[in-house]
């Protein structure tokens, strides 16, 4: 859940149409007209994250306070609770586990968004606000939860939004654990902790 108070604004006098803002936007809210060499923002999709403003090489994007803030967020309908919890636990998350530290979004909200039709990280970001704070740390939980729901998205063509799902603790080969286990990495011990979190009782009840 996120209250969106900010909005990205493009300065047409400075924009060169380089498309970097296109490529880094986590909600696909910016499109560049390649004939006009000009980016434009879909105000309804812009989450007010810093990605485009922080990467524009021309300083052509700035962030302003919206006149009308709005909420990004997905409720978990009671009827979906069993399925939401199942997706979370299959993805090795506790349903109440935070997956986005900036927006305080939890795994169950992402799973609910997936059940409601968000089938890409970009659509999940647009609906829940996840990955619209720092834009860095919460990609893999989205991909793991999509995977657990049987959905295998492709990255946006030509975009830099994301490139691929990566390894989890449960997938580290035994040979690696044996080779490096004495160097302080504690692979199996961490899996034991993560598993106990996944199976911990809910606080919601």
């Amino acid at each position, binding site marked *: 859940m996120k209250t969106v108070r900010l909005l990205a604004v493009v300065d047409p006098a400075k924009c060169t149409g380089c498309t970097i803002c296109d490529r880094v936007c986590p909600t696909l809210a910016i499109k560049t007209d390649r004939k006009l060499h000009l980016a434009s923002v879909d105000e309804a999709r812009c989450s007010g994250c810093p990605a485009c403003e922080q990467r524009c090489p021309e300083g052509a994007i700035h962030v302003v306070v919206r006149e009308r803030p709005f909420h990004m967020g997905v409720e978990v309908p009671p009827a979906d609770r069993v399925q939401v919890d199942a997706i979370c636990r299959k993805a090795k998350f506790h349903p109440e*586990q935070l997956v986005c530290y900036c927006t305080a979004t939890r795994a169950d909200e992402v799973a609910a968004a997936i059940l409601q039709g968000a089938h890409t990280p970009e659509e999940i970001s647009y609906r829940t606000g996840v990955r619209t704070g720092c834009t860095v740390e919460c990609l893999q939980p989205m991909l793991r939860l999509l995977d657990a729901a049987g959905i295998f998205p492709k990255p946006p063509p030509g975009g830099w939004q994301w490139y691929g799902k990566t390894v989890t603790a449960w997938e580290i080969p035994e040979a690696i654990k044996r080779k490096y286990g004495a160097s302080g990495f504690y692979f199996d011990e*961490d899996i034991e902790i993560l598993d106990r979190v996944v199976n911990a009782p809910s606080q919601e009840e």
Partner: protein
Amino acid sequence: MRPPIAPMPPRKSQYGIDPSLVRRRVSELPGITSITLKELFPELPDVIVPGPGGLPAVRRAAEATLDAVDMSRIKPGDSVNVLASHHGFTLLGGEPYAEMLKAIKDVIVRRTGCTDIRLRAGVGLRFRETEEYIRRFGLDTHFNGKAIGVAPIDQAIPIETEIGTLYGIKRVYDADWIVHAHNSDVREVHFHRQVDRAVKPFGMSYARIETRSTYHQNMGPRAANFIARAIFDSPFVQGKYAFSCFLTMSPNGIMGVDADRDLYALNERVTFTGCSLYGRVMTLFGEIDECIVALDFPCPVVYVFSAGVIYANFAGANTDLYDLELPLPAYTWYTEAFYGKQGRPLLPEIPPLNPAIKMCVQNYAWTGYPSAFFSEHIPTVIVGKEQAELFDRDAQNALYTSHAKILDTTEEAMAYARKTTGSEKVLVFDGAFGGLNLTEPLAELLLKKAPAVSRRVDEELLPKWLRQRGISSAA
């Protein structure tokens, strides 16, 4: 009472309020004194910064150690990326790290004849931070216009590793050779636990979001440190890796510069100093029974320094951050993730944030790091509406001020903290070089406790910490 040590001045940045709005430093208030780290721990090494030698001492140390490194693989027509990270620019004002970077470039030119040398400076979560440092320290000029900041959302390059595909930032690796230019300061010991500390940037400031998210979400609090090693050991990175050069740090300053082709040999030395020197300060901070913390440094909330360690370390000082048998310190992102909807940990053994911190007064700190966990669990006062408004505009801190109280002045905030908590012990995180600013009751406590802490570290803790990391004391 000894007078306070001059704190690190406010720094103009898009991530902090304008320095003119920092009207009072906490160290200027009545009752603040200082102690040096050498008073607490006389066994700490002598340092070159702070010291009379100044930046030329850093330059000499860098040149001396770099002259002993094999650079024969770098040829005159090659390209070299010197890889830097934002963190180095927060150490003792940043000039020493910048000077080391300049020295690296100059020595490579002198010894190899190679002139296409670029600077690629990675960041944490403030994507333009190193761009600010590049301008501030004249690195763009020194690197002939070839100095850029790189961010984790920039274009990726896939890297095949022993544990599958991970992703680096393409422009980090767009040269024939890379030089890893870092430092041995422990900083985020709550994350890296002093395991492969010297290797960490390969999984963090040189890495894409896929990799960083793997570290912080996919692996667990201790196993995560393997991510950087997997990338560094990959054939792709090894094919480009030339050597490493580190500022070597002690809590009381810069000991020197260490360069090595063998990063793991350097890592063992870094691990030893990280445990033996910084472990003393961490353990001593764990002896503080109650205090008010004052943040007053140009960095995000978690990264403000006192006695060479950061606020996030003190927030976890109620546990032994170096003890790898402890899976979850009081603060890591894994720990934060494991708090449920009622604001309590999902597992009973998860420790609370350091209960000795009775209140936190944020006189001056930056945005650009998700910090709401701290204001939610530690009573927090923010000085000045301008600072509060800046945090409200920060996408990473949507909820930070909603858990905090906002007061107009430093004096008002500190008086409020004293009255509310009843504590006369104040610990100031303001980056004072070589020591720390604090109130007299806290200074007395630390001076009394320090000798026993030293003995405990040497005789009991250090051997355990090194054993857990597979490093012998002899190393």
